């Protein structure tokens, strides 16, 4: 069975069904959405079960020529970098769909669910695409459902936020399209064959200058999507104006698209270019860490706080990828999953509090723990994971990211540690500001904000996943090792890293004799 293709097609089919449902068929819409998303989850579990942990290249590949004349194909598969992201996507979307079904918007409910399904299909396509054009199609396609969700069901400033979200991210993507085409054409000069398959491009030596320019084209798009400082301007408005369920999906899953692209395309396809852009990108990531933390410290609402903290957290992930270190990169892959879970949980807590009290304003909340002790416990878990308390799942990723960074550039790790300290400050501000102190802005000691069974359905699985990763991260990392090593190896060779740091010696080393490790003293 072409499971990976089904992974994309099933939610797409669900979206089509939901799209033609009349707006009043709310029960049927819920059913279709839940069945669609659960089926997708089941398929993703099958994909994970069939996954071969020791295989470095894409596996379970479904290949179909799409536009043969242009070398474009439907090529989807999974590898160690994407496998957990696929599972994260299906899990988070399952929980998100449940949350959406619990509070389906009064207006055009089925359409709301249809767009969520569409977004899921697009993201799964993005994480599995093995062809650059396909990647680009899903990259842009993903914007549409999210933008419409913000545009139609968002807060007061939904139009502005939706517009900025679309225009800004699309402006960046256009450069990527140019870079994609340029890359394929340049590769054609070398191989004599036009192909947009990523694996075909990995063997091509572009030369340092070309590589740098092409990578820069991709980086703009990635930087906006990640978002890397100072390209994060769309984030606060989108996160605070989107319906909260959509914010969960944006923060948990969509924010991984940029860093995923960096590791899937940027590093392995343009190893010669990384060296020139390593320090600038790393500095932007570091600024993002400190800057995001500072803004999170002073942010007026919970949503903004978590949103800015995401800027900081993604700075860590970018840092882990860009320094080209095996430990850091594997930490980064793990941290993508961790951040997905933690951000989803954090926004889910925000959702529970906002629903119970009617506000997400930090100044108007306080002392909820008395009436909502169960929520306080869940929130505490989330807080500790978000500030990466040692022993939490996020700490595992952060520890190995920074450990790897420290190996290569110790000063970067030291600066990044500032973000670790600030994380404690702003996350405690959020936790204590809402849960502790004298009760504020709520009646009934905040009992209305208590976590009920319907909230627990969403929060408890997330917390269980956090505990799982905290207790045994090896179970995830074991699957990512081979692919991450393969993705990094060319860049490590190009950078002239010591041989013992390199996981696998890439075939292309022979193509670029100037950087052959054997000749290095």
């Amino acid at each position, binding site marked *: 069975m072409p499971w990976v293709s089904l992974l994309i097609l099933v939610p797409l089919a669900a979206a089509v069904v939901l799209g033609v449902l009349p707006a009043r068929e709310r029960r049927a819409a819920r059913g279709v959405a839940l069945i669609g998303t659960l089926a997708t989850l089941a398929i993703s579990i099958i994909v994970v079960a069939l996954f071969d942990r020791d295989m470095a290249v894409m596996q379970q590949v479904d290949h179909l020529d799409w536009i043969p004349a242009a070398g474009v194909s439907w090529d989807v598969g999974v590898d160690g970098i994407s496998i957990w992201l696929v599972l994260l996507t299906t899990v988070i979307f399952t929980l998100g769909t449940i949350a959406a079904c619990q509070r389906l918007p009064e207006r055009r409910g089925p359409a709301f669910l249809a767009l969520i399904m569409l977004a899921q299909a697009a993201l799964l396509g993005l994480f599995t695409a093995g062809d650059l054009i396909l990647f680009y199609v899903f990259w842009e396609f993903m914007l549409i459902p999210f933008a419409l969700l913000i545009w139609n069901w968002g807060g007061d400033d939904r139009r502005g936020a939706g517009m900025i979200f679309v225009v800004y991210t699309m402006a960046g993507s256009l450069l990527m399209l140019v870079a994609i085409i340029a890359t394929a054409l340049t590769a054609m000069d070398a191989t004599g064959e036009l192909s947009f398959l990523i694996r075909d491009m990995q063997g091509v030596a572009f030369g340092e200058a070309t590589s740098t320019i092409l990578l820069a084209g991709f980086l703009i798009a990635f930087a906006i999507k990640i978002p890397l400082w100072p390209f994060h301007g769309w984030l606060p408005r989108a996160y605070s104006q989107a319906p909260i369920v959509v914010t969960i999906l944006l923060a948990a899953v969509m924010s991984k698209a940029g860093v995923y692209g960096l590791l899937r395309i940027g590093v392995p396809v343009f190893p010669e270019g990384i060296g020139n852009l390593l320090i600038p990108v790393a500095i932007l990531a570091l600024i993002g860490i400190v800057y995001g933390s*500072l803004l999170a410290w002073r942010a007026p609402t919970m949503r903004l706080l978590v949103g800015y903290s995401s800027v900081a957290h993604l700075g860590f992930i970018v840092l882990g990828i860009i320094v080209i270190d*095996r430990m850091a990169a594997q930490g980064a892959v793990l941290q993508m999953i961790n951040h997905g879970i933690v951000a989803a949980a954090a926004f889910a807590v925000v959702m529970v509090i906002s629903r119970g009290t009617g506000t997400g304003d930090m100044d108007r909340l306080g002392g909820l723990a008395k009436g909502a002790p169960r929520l306080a416990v869940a929130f505490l878990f989330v807080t500790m994971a978000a500030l990466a308390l040692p022993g939490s799942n996020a700490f595992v990723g952060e520890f190995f990211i920074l*450990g790897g960074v*420290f190996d290569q550039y110790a000063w970067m790790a030291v600066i990044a*540690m500032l973000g670790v300290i600030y994380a404690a400050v702003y996350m405690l501000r959020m936790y204590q500001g809402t849960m*502790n102190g004298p009760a504020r802005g709520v009646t009934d000691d905040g009992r209305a904000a208590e976590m009920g069974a319907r909230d627990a359905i969403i929060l408890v699985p997330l917390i269980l996943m956090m505990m799982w990763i905290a207790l045994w991260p*090896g179970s995830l990392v074991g699957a990512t090792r081979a692919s991450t090593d393969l993705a990094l190896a060319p860049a490590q060779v190009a950078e002239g890293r010591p041989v013992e740091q390199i996981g696998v010696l890439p075939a292309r080393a022979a193509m670029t004799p100037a950087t052959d490790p054997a000749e290095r003293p």
Partner: protein
Amino acid sequence: MATALAWIVLVVPLISGIVLAGWPGEPPHAVTRLLGIGSILISFALSVAVFIGLLGNAADDRSFTSSAFEWISIAGTDVDLSILVDPLSVMMMLIITGVGFLIHLYSAEYMEHDRDYRRFFASMNLFVFSMLLLVLAGNFFFLIVGWAFVGLASYLLIGFWYERPTAVAAAKKAFVINVIGDVGLVLAAFLILRELGTLDYGEAFAGASGLGANSGTVLAICLLLFVGAAAKSAQVPLHTWLPDAMEGPTPVSALIHAATMVTAGVYLIVRCHAFFDLSWLAGDIVAVVGAITLLMAATVALQQVDIKRVLAWSTVSQVGYMIMAVGLGAYASGMFMLMAHAFYKAALFLAAGVVIHALHDEQSLDRMGGLRKYLRVAYFGMGAGCLAIAGVPGFAGFFAKDDVLASALNGGAIGVFCWVVGILGAFLTALYMFRLLFRAFFGPEPAGGYQPAPHPSRWWMSVPVVVLGILSIVGGWLQLPFGWTEISDWLLPVTGEGPAILEPTHATEVVTIIVSVVMALGGIGLAWWLFGADPERRIRLAAIARGPRAVMDDAWRFDEAYDDVFVEPGREMADVMLTRVEPAGPQGIITGTVAFVRGAARLVRSSQSGMVRAYAFWMVLGIALAGIVAALIAAGGS
């Protein structure tokens, strides 16, 4: 066998903590007590069993590691979930579970009127688990995990009464400063990982000597480890959280902020002594910081009015002694003092707790006096503790402190400096502790008497106070001057022998004993003259040295300086970023992009006039251009 028991010791408090935390609603107090206290009792009993088991082995066969499973394997680095059972960790286990059990027992009565009885015991069990994880961890990764978990438990318990803004703020402060310490520890781990390629204790300590004595790397590792130790053990300049931590319930102060957690820094340095032995500079820095801390904290303790704050500053000062000792290389002395301090400081705190409980949460010394009559048990506990901490011969503190100081006297110039500071500290310690004793238990009752009369504690609270009071006396007899060195012998397999290890000699012991006894008695005498003999005297003398005393009363204004240097500028910077940089920079990029797109759109839009004929004109224009181009091509072609 030893490791299997140790695993159980570790896991039992965790399980009971989880059961309590997950219990739906509030269980009956009996159930909470059974789970919360019983689990610690089991852990204590098994710790004793481990101890006895190790005693049966030869001295060089008392170290075992046990790995549960491969926790992660990443880029050639394997981290196992493993524990290390050796004399050092067993000694810590005994202290943690033993003192922990007594304090749990005490809490059963102390907290019984609190709404969140269950939450209290769940947090306390979490703490005991975390502390055990800290001392049992077999590698740096899980050391850090335990290190942070005790910080979390401390945070939860300081902020236990979360409706009080002061408690919430204190909890946050403690947590953030502990995170700073965590960062130091993590960086140290990174450095060890980079230089030695492993996080495992055994491999790291074995490879330490390969880094070269007094090399910059070793110095950096030691100082980073010490950042972690200083934050946890409240050493200057990271000490400011501990006095505020007194916002927590008194048993918490006794267990976490006196007996166990704050001494984790001492444990860390002893555990990592392989690195400290290699760098005399690092050791000296540690010792000097310890010395400064002990003296500074002692001066602050002199004037505190809050009974718990006196004890808190006293703790900072006492931990300073230990840090000073281990910095100089007197590891066994430091650990001895750690143990003795656990006994007498716990006794002091629990006795203070009895007072506070009896006076209905009154903590101010100004509202106390003459309590001797009402609270015999507390008087005993406080008295024994004060005699011990002041260093009166025969009590635990005497032997421990003299062991430290006598070792220091062998430590060269820095050692002598530390000795002098320590002696000075001993005098101040006797002074401020007996001030506390005299003002609370002697003298007249406060104006108007006690309304209602202080009620004595029941046995839940009394037994631990009495037991710890007795331990404050006999606990010091494990290591006596002139040759009875049970603690040093026990720890010998861990600390080893070498040029860097300090031991007292007979000569230094004689000198130290004489001087310190004089100092202690002098301090007690001065306290009696000032506070005991005539309660009015201190009021008459209040005008003396107002300025310096105000500085000391404000704890040398560390908090204010931190606020001015770090917190306020940081907050202002963040505000500037939020209100100025963010709209101009990142948002400006967007505004610019949007403005550009909008402008371009407006341009295109104006062509869409909606007039059909205008469109026809455009079409004609196209035709015209096409025709002209066609003509040009034809002309060129022919």
